């Protein structure tokens, strides 16, 4: 779905150096550095309250930051904003989904393409068909109000709406939140499918096992700082990760 076909596999889509975010005088994130390449799934795992959601909100421009963010080779300046980043193909699927509850599934999807429509691309109907191919369930529910969907369908709608923007970088915040194991499996299968389309994905998860299983590279975020990083096959066997995030109080 990306418009960047033809570029090399290892193009850096997002690079973050020494990023800090504070709420008032309090540092919520400190000295974060990470990289996401095209066609790659990168995950950030960590406990509640570590600052994972803050990281994504900061990246998409909802929070002011200190440090350096390079997106698509362009260093972001003080004038960065959610709207500009959306126009440049960065899309966030938020933890709370933030759907338009009193609108139909179809209208929710349509608004996902709002910015492309404004920029003059009138291909929203074709894009919607592509989204329906990925999430056939949304096709069945197209007339229904978003508020009447089940938890899994809501997550699908949130992701489908984000895909309507034809993103180059998709930020996913806890897609497994509040979902049953079977549904989680389905969502994560779709995430791997998206990777094949060439979208770069930054996945933030508390469900460390599932996240590490689908991602290529992982970071561990603890109390606002990255404590560990590496290819996911290494992290899955790293004793520090196993003990804190993969076992249930592993050492007992």
């Amino acid at each position: 779905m990306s418009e960047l076909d033809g570029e090399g596999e290892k193009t850096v889509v997002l690079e973050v150096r020494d990023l800090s975010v504070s709420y008032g005088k309090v540092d919520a994130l400190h000295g974060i550095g990470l990289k996401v390449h095209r066609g790659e799934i990168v995950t950030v795992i960590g406990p509640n309250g570590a600052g994972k959601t803050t990281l994504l909100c900061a990246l998409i421009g909802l929070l002011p930051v200190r440090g350096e963010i390079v997106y698509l080779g362009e260093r972001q300046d003080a004038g960065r904003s959610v709207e500009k980043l959306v126009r440049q193909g960065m899309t966030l699927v938020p933890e709370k989904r933030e759907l338009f509850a009193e609108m139909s599934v179809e209208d929710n999807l349509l608004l996902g393409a709002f910015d492309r429509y404004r920029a003059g691309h009138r291909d929203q109907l074709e894009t919607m068909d592509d989204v329906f191919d990925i999430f056939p369930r949304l096709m069945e529910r197209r007339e229904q109000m978003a508020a009447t969907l089940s938890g899994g369908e809501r997550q699908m709608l949130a992701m489908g709406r984000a895909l309507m923007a034809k993103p180059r970088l998709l930020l996913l915040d806890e897609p497994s939140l509040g979902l049953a194991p079977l549904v989680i499996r389905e969502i994560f299968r779709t995430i791997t499918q998206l990777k094949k389309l060439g979208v770069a994905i930054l996945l933030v998860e508390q469900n460390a096992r599932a996240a590490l299983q689908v991602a290529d590279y992982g970071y561990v975020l603890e109390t606002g700082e990255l404590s560990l990083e590496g290819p996911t096959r290494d992290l899955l066997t790293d004793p520090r990760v196993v003990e804190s995030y993969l076992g249930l109080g592993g050492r007992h």
Partner: protein
Amino acid sequence: MDLQIALLLGQDGLSNGAIYALLALALVLVFAVTRVIFIPQGEFVAFGALTLASLQAGRLPGTIWLVLALGTVIALVDGSRALRGRQFRRIPWIVLVNCGIPLLLAGVLFAVSAASLPLPVQVLLALMLVVPLGPMIYRLAYQPVAEASVLVLLIVSVAVHVTLIGIGLLFFGAEGSRTPAFTDVSFELGDTLLQGQTILVVVASVVLIVALYFFFERTIYGKALRATAMNRTGARLMGISGTLAGMLSFTLAASIGAFSGILISPITTIYYDSGFLIGLKGFVGAIIGGLASYPVAAAGAILVGLLESYSSFWASAFKEVIVFTLIIPVLLWRSLKTRHVEEE
């Protein structure tokens, strides 16, 4: 009260109620999209009516000075920001939009004698002078504090309201104006005379409401406004910026206000400060709808119009007391109905 008087009063109440309904819709729209309680809504009514009256009287409407002044201030604010951000290419565009268009309008006003133009052109000119004030005021007064609490935005609204009242006095003077009727047609209904102007007000209001309905249900921009009202964060993440939604809703509100003013100016004498009470009656309607429901707000506003009309017959001195005291039982009913739980 005999039937004839009852019908006459009903006619009056309905036409006023239709105007209040339009204003109530605009108030609900602005609140839902921007969280601004738009107290100055009524000033747009007065400015619309008085600008048209000035044009018809062959005077230069003061509104043009306001458009020029606000345009210049916005050009200065946005231009200096663009300079600081080294976005030099944006500057000609900023100056053109904010100063060029108002200057063009001023040129037209100086060049032609508006009094001799046909009525529809006069109306169009009046709208072109008043409607831009909506987005301009949003840009200068509200956008810098768009993230502030509802209460701060409300105090800003009150400040904008008193400023516009003062400016209205400066431009239009303390004298009231009434424009000639758009139509002299009247119909006989039994013993009662149905005024063409009244019918025009009701029909025009209905047409405008239907047009608004289609805008919100069928167009992507209308849907974007609804989406912003439902979920601000969600909308921003789709690239629907708060500024865009704010500008759009203020443009709509200003259009509705100015249009309402033009509609009623042949029925009522409008003074520079008449808008406030008219707008507030729209508010009573909007509050009946909880500042959220469009149909209930419109129905409530029509009720206010009827109540006002009949109470002016029974207790004319207490007309305003009755209408504004109505808000208290409404608030009581609202407070019993809604249980407010804060977000955890």
